[in-house]
């Protein structure tokens, strides 16, 4: 039998370095996997993780060649925006010991509500329509997250299962909308909505790239949330309820109130991310809107050490793996799923490192275990 025993003095240094160790282990195990797929491992790993970083580096150190190297940095940031928004919200949720696994569904609902505003809302100045659009998206995600919040606080239903299952409901809802009532009459039978008008498209920040306004929103929100967690009573409440609900009750903090707060917050941010992504990179509703960002953001939250500002860094790392995956598809003809395997391994190693830094494994004889 295997026992996990708490270590008396868990290393503080290792606790900080845990993400670095996990990335190293992911590269090692990923190398073995790539070799098994018949790829020279070092070269394949270069394509996956170091080529995007390499190109980022060229962009930074060669100002005169920036136009040439701008594609990779801008695409990394474009991918990082939804990951950072969702991930920052999830860090707060997880700190409260509330496990919202359904950010993908909240993201989808954000896209649907935003889409409703874009398709049926008024035309006019973007100063008016964009706030309306983003608010609608955030509201959609918030509404979807309210379901697990209600069921958890009222009936003690497990929020992991409820939020996860609602993801599939959300996907089917979007599918039905774009194949049914919201299908564009000029789509030649394709399941897509009408294109959003310019009033509902997020402005691009850097000409010649897809980098959009969402970047500023993501940074501002993540930093604001980090300040909230560190400096305000509201953030303190979340940490206390997550660490010791009974001490929270002693302090006069409402546990169900905190569960509502973190689920609505993380759901609202996931919804906002969905609305932003659809407006900035697709421009219409369709069945596939990259909702899996909602799952990847779980890794972002852990990689960012459950700190909203850390989630910005975690989002960058995961975004690089997405871009590397696209490179690998093109250059190495590797399937897209390999990216998912890398991301899964990263989370696995990260959680394993965090656990083994705090606990040691002890093997006991089978006889002692069975008795």
């Amino acid at each position, binding site marked *: 039998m295997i026992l996990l025993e708490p270590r008396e003095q868990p290393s503080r240094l290792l606790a900080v370095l845990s993400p670095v160790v996990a990335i190293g282990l992911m590269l090692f195990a990923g190398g073995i996997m790539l070799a098994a797929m018949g790829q020279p491992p070092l070269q394949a790993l270069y394509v996956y993780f170091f080529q995007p970083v390499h190109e980022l580096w060229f962009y930074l150190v060669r100002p005169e060649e920036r136009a040439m190297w701008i594609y990779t940095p801008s695409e990394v940031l474009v991918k990082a925006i939804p990951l950072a928004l969702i991930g920052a919200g999830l860090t707060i949720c997880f700190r409260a010991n509330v496990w919202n696994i359904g950010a993908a569904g909240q993201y989808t609902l954000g896209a649907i509500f935003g889409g409703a505003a874009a398709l049926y809302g008024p035309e006019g100045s973007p100063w008016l329509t964009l706030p309306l659009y983003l608010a609608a998206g955030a509201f959609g995600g918030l509404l979807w997250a309210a379901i697990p919040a209600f069921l958890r606080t009222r009936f003690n239903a497990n929020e992991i299962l409820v939020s996860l299952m609602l993801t599939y409901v959300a996907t089917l809802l979007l599918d039905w909308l774009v194949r049914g009532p919201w299908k564009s009459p000029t789509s030649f039978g394709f399941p897509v909505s009408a294109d959003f008008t310019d009033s509902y498209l997020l402005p691009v920040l850097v000409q010649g790239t897809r980098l959009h306004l969402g970047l500023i929103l993501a940074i501002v929100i993540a930093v604001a949330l980090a300040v909230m967690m560190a400096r305000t*009573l509201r953030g*303190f409440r979340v940490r206390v309820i997550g660490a*010791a609900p009974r001490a929270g009750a*002693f302090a006069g903090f409402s546990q169900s109130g905190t569960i509502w707060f973190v689920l609505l917050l993380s759901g609202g941010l996931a919804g906002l991310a969905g609305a932003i992504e659809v407006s900035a990179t697709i421009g219409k509703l369709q069945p596939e809107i990259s909702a899996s960002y909602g799952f990847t953001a779980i890794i972002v939250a852990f990689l960012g050490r459950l700190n909203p500002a850390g989630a910005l860094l975690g989002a960058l790392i995961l975004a690089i793996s997405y871009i590397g995956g696209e490179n690998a598809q093109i250059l190495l003809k590797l399937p897209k799923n390999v990216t998912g395997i890398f991301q899964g391994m990263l989370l696995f190693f990260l959680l394993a490192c965090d656990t083994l830094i705090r606990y040691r494994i002890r093997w006991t004889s089978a006889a002692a275990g069975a*008795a």
Partner: protein
Amino acid sequence: MDTPAGQTALFEARDVSKLFGTFAANDKVSLVVQRGEKHALLGENGAGKSTLVKMMYGVMQPTSGRFFWRGQQVTIPKPAAAREMGIGMVFQHFSVFEALNVAENIALALPPQSMRGLSDSIAEVSEAYGLAIDPERAVHTLSVGEKQRVEIIRCLLQSPQLLIMDEPTSVLTPQETQVLFSTLNKLAEDGCAILYISHKLEEVKTLCDTATILRHGKLVAHCDPGKSSAREMAELMVGDNIANLARNGATQPGDARLEITDLTLPAVGDFGTALDRISLEVRAGEIVGIAGIAGEGQPELMDALTGERLAGTPGTIRFDGVPLGRAGPTDRRAAGAAFVPEERNGHAAISDLTLSENVILAHHTAERVAGGGWIDFGKAADWTRRIREAFDVRAGDENPAAGSLSGGNLQKFVVGREILRKPGVLIVSQPTWGVDAGAAAVIRQALIDLARDGAAVLVISQDLEEVFAICDRIAVIYHGTLSPAKPAAEMTAETVGLLMAGGTLAEDAA
């Protein structure tokens, strides 16, 4: 330890000690259990009963001393070894898997075998000992008494010769207790010895042939419960020296600052206690103590007083006359109340947070450490410094994690955190639980000084010496009811001991 000639004792513990640091939980305790005997192990909470039986069952190892099984010296390294020898134990808070059915729960504790055969043996045992239970029923649908039967059957299927029962009736109704007693009697007739841990004297008188009494980790007496009176046993349990301790000097109590009127709350969960029409008044300048054995409703009462559980009507609990029965802890603190719950880690403080952050826990609104929603870390650090100075809280860093402090220092911190607020009403549970004598003296003195300055202090404590040492009036909680508070001068160790064991003062007077 007399053993009848020609018969070896079934189990014997000889001069067994267990030290935790310098604290002796068991100090040279000896115990002899004969075949077929119903043997009571009596003592107050903290007397060392649980420590002794945990060593007998292999959960802990003695620091010194020897165990004998059928005359042979044995070591009991783990519970599996105890079960193999023939010792079974039913814990007070039993562990059953709610999602499984009865047979599956029992199968988990036994060597692998066919479920059909197991169901048959369960039916057989439950028939033989009057433990009616359906092996197919899901455990979450069972009553507490039925869950206990599952545990007992689980033990009996391993054919024990000694069955240890840790306060088995604390969760049972009187009817269920009757059924349990007839099962235990039947078992004893069949030759199985019972070691029955309890502090309920009437039960012990009904059931047991012999009794061993522990106090402060030491063996104080063997007696025959049939011949000794409940009163004699109560005296042996609580000791007779405590009434001699010096008490707080006479005070002139002022107006009522804490009023509890007919506080009634239902029990929560299997192990909870319902509160039944509790009424009490604590006046300015006095310390009132609530004595009682563990699990008689103290945590429930504390939760109702802090506001973690709300009372039925606002008027049930008044602080300085203000009805706050339906108000949460923050509003009660704002009205001048302060609280120190029994559990330091995870209730009064969070071990992962720093001391300053633990100040915020209680002072965020009442002392405006986080007034307006923004945390004032300077203010929190200032409080921390003042608490550490006033109560000599020792720790390595300036602002360490609460978990790095010793128990005594952390307790001084959480008590100091509340007292430095100069509250009008202080409610404290187990103020010196598990702290060394020096820290205990500091804390008790601080409580006395606070009352002298005009606060009303309510102390909930299982430590009778403490209650007699600092309290002006004493009430006893038993089964969720509270006896009227009487001046400490009129109470003796035996009257309090009797009330704690479920007697009444009227009975005592008769």
